[in-house]
């Protein structure tokens, strides 16, 4: 089994920044990426920092210690690391509706990826956009235009899809009952933090509407409730690329410093910047901020008479 000081899971903006900042402080680092996309670019970006890189490795298990189990093209692999930086990003929010499983119904980011990265229309050029994420809709609308497609409908709520030949052929809204013929329905309901790995590591979470759902609780140095597990970027709350990069740099420096690699003023400086430029990113645990939990505990105690 290969051992490292720090394993970073996720090679988005946060993960790359974390791996680079930790490796620059002389920690031995491995960055684990689920995809093989942009592998060459990432490898060259990281080569000057000394961080290792594993592409096409999907982490499916994590144990205290820490040990990470992953699925790779070469079979199962285990990696041991004293610190884990979770940078697993976010996932498109999806909802079920009548006909939502028909071929042709897809996430907006999936369609964007097919158009921008793969250069193929996934089934046709007529698109109905479903959802309310204004920013994503604007971006997708532009991409549809550039690729020579046609936006045929915009539905913000209560969609229903139907088929005449096994694949999506029309979409309607249960509000007005109108049907529009379409090849693709792209769902744009925003994103939610991807906290599966954080939960596997038993990190404490809290609900935050502004951060996009249940997110891990973090200290000022982005450490979770599990010692040695750090979290940065979208998996700790939906935000911009700038936030992800900043948090990655902070998590990397803090994890490195916790292993005895002096960071100078870096951790303090990055902490101050995060606090000043992006307030509200860190959710601390305060019992009095969790009235529902307090209430539940009190009512159970009262019932038990203790």
């Amino acid at each position, binding site marked *: 089994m290969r051992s490292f000081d720090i394993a970073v899971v996720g090679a988005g903006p946060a993960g790359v920044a974390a791996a680079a900042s930790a490796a620059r402080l002389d920690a031995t680092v491995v960055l684990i990426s*689920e*995809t093989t996309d942009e592998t060459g670019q990432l490898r060259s970006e990281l080569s000057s920092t000394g961080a290792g890189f594993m592409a096409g490795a999907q982490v499916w298990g994590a144990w205290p210690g820490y040990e990470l189990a992953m699925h790779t093209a070469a079979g199962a692999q285990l990696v041991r690391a004293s610190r884990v930086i979770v940078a697993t990003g976010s*996932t*498109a929010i*999806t909802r079920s509706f009548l006909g939502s*499983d*028909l*071929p*042709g*119904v*897809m*996430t907006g*980011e*999936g*369609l964007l*990826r*097919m*158009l921008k990265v*793969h*250069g*193929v*229309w*996934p*089934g*046709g*050029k007529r698109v109905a956009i479903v959802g309310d994420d204004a920013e994503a809709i604007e971006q997708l609308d532009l991409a549809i235009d550039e*690729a*020579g497609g046609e936006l045929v409908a915009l539905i913000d709520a209560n969609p229903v899809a139907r088929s005449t030949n*096994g*694949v999506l052929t029309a979409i309607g809204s249960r509000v007005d009952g109108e049907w529009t013929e379409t090849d693709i329905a792209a769902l744009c309901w925003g994103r939610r933090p991807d906290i599966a790995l954080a939960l596997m590591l038993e990190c404490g979470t809290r609900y935050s509407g502004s951060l996009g759902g249940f997110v891990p609780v973090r200290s000022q140095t982005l450490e979770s409730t599990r010692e040695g597990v750090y979290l940065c970027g979208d998996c700790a709350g939906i935000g911009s690329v700038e936030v992800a990069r900043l948090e990655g740099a902070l998590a990397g420096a803090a994890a490195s410093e916790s292993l005895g690699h002096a960071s100078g003023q870096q951790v303090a400086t990055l902490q101050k910047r995060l606090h000043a430029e992006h307030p509200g990113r860190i959710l601390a645990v305060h019992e009095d901020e969790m009235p529902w939990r307090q209430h539940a505990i009190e009512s159970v105690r009262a019932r038990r008479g203790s």
Partner: protein
Amino acid sequence: MPADLRINQTGPQSAVAFRFDGVEMNGQDGDTIAAALFANGIRIFRTMPKTGRARGGFCFVGRCSDCQVIVNGVPGVMACVAKLEPGMRIQTQHGVGAWGDDE
């Protein structure tokens, strides 16, 4: 119809020959399996184990498993992330598919 589903093609691309359910098709160098199938007008990749309903890709980032196909006798290959290779024998996956299912 299929040909014009490609976007912004500049110049000739090197073709990659493969078979889908026994039919000869051509993809392009750099295609994922899903991209190549879409470009050939295919929209149904698999059917579901319990309901038998058709699926044709949903997330395109390797999460949802709606695009699983059988490749060279190996089921459960994510068409949206797996790269197309010359001579691949690709099949629609019914249910969870079976190892060794091949033409």
